[in-house]
């Protein structure tokens, strides 16, 4: 017998292996089913899938890739958090340190290009869902959840853009934050805002309008950095994770990967 095969048989026969994998080699229907059913990640899938739905030319694998990139971003993001402090004193220097002191380091690159990729894969996933009419009943609600996830993806990218604290970062965020000031009735430069006053006292001013809420101040500063950091690392990923769970669950409940009725 082949010694490798022998070793394999020995390993898969140990109590440790059997305690982890509760099925044999998935080369028969029973073990193929168990492989999917008894694995927490794989059980997101049904045991059997429409043949038309497993074709790459049908799904483009963009939804799956988006989720994969979300995981990549989570892992690289957690690693980056070990080396980054969101304060005016340290933020920029910590990024410099990552660049200058880590030989062959590509952690930040993976995180940044992964983020750009995720924006693209989300668009392509939506594009595929649109082109196959998969948002139609019974999947209307899940399409809506997906749209919110699209917004979250762009907000995650947007909040992450500020963190390196370089010129590129603050001026890009300035462009976005100025939009907050233009919110109707809620931004200091927005239409209708000046109507909201009691006597001569404006209810909405630069110290409490939408832009102030976004930046945690009248201008981009340390409070903004902390706010964007918490949003980027905790708040938005938390909401996204919740909605991803809903999204996946609804994919299954609505009949799995779409196909002709």
């Amino acid at each position: 017998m082949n010694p490798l095969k022998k070793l394999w048989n020995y390993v898969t026969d140990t109590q440790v292996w059997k305690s982890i994998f509760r099925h044999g080699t998935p080369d028969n229907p029973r073990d193929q089913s168990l492989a999917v059913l008894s694995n927490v990640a794989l059980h997101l899938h049904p045991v059997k899938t429409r043949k038309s739905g497993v074709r790459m030319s049908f799904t483009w694998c963009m939804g799956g890739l988006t989720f994969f990139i979300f995981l990549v971003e989570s892992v690289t993001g957690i690693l980056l958090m070990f080396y980054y402090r969101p304060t005016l004193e340290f933020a920029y220097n910590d990024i410099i340190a990552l660049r200058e002191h880590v030989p062959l380091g590509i952690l930040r690159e993976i995180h940044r290009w992964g983020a750009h990729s995720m924006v693209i894969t989300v668009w392509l996933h939506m594009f595929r869902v649109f082109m196959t009419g998969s948002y139609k009943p019974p999947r209307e609600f899940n399409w809506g959840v997906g749209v919110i996830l699209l917004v979250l993806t762009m907000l995650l990218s947007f909040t992450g853009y500020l963190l390196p604290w370089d010129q590129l970062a603050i001026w890009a965020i300035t462009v976005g934050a100025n939009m907050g000031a233009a919110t109707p009735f809620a931004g200091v430069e927005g239409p209708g805002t000046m109507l909201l006053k009691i006597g001569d006292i404006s209810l909405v001013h630069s110290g409490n309008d939408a832009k102030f809420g976004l930046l945690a101040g009248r201008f981009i500063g340390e409070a903004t950095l902390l706010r964007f950091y918490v949003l980027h690392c905790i708040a938005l990923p938390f909401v996204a994770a919740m909605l991803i769970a809903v999204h996946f669950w609804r994919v299954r409940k609505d009949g799995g990967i779409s196909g002709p009725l």
Partner: protein
Amino acid sequence: MEWLKDVVNFLSNPTIFFTGAVVLWVLIMKYYRIWTAPKFIKTVTILSVIALGAALFDPNFAKEALKPDNVPIWIMIYSVGFFFWLAMRRGLLNDDLMAEGLPNLEKQESDKRVYTWPDLVYSELICMVLFTAFLVGWSVILKAPLEDPANAGVTPAIAKAPWYFLGLQEILVYYDPWMAGVILPGLIVVGLIAMPYFDMNPKGNGYYTIKERFWALWVWGFGFVVLWIALIFLGTFMRGPGWNFFGPFEYWDSHKVVALANINLSEIVWVQLFNIGLPSNILVRESVGIILTVLYMSVIPPLLAKTFLKKLYEEMGLVRYSLMIVLVLIMASLPIKMYLRWSFNLKYIVSIPEYMFNL
């Protein structure tokens, strides 16, 4: 070569660029039978890559095109192009099959079930591995950008949002921030969520098709490809310091001065047409713009419901139809405003700076 660059620079002018994008979209949706042929698209791709490669020899073009943060745009454009082709190709094949009374490509296999292990999980694994290799390669080749430390006192020649928002930033040329930055993005989200409830066509659910839902593809694709992606392209590569227009091969001169000759509708009416000066009463002053806006939003919907969209209106009912047509009209207002700006230098249709309300 210089004359060719000059031609491209000239053709990239927002007016021509946007008109070209609209015309191209109309042609794309009309002659999809021609361009979805694999041979055709292969030729176009190769030619475009050669043209792009040649253009990179120009230092002004290369500077923006190869900026690390702009590289994803090229990946986005080529991948959207490829997948759009793929979807249209399959749609066409399906339409031909169904025209002969045969089941479409998806239908042929949708009743068969295969085991998720290995048929699905292996494709997923391969995708993940290939993508990881791609991402690592990308990260090794291109360093993440880092500019000078943040300094609120030093204003850069041009402040741009991240590239995926540049379509919206481009809209800022034609709409005030409250529209371009708040209302329109908000309505894009609302419109996307509402879309499945507007599209009542039961056909084309779960398979690629063009014929069965031609106008849905047409309108949605116009929004995605022309109003979103083409404007991102314009905003990234053709907008330099001061958000002034620069051709792809032009040097981004931060001292370029463009005369601002834009005037409001009220000025056109009261000053240029009647020659009597602006009325002091705001409502009188803006009456023409307000009436036009109200007419646009209130007369066109019933008019369409009675004529071109009669069938659609009857299917959708009053509430659905009204909500949809309002969103579509707001979407259509963007190109309308763009052309009004280009042809009449029109700044605002309704301009009430007293209350920061400009339309």
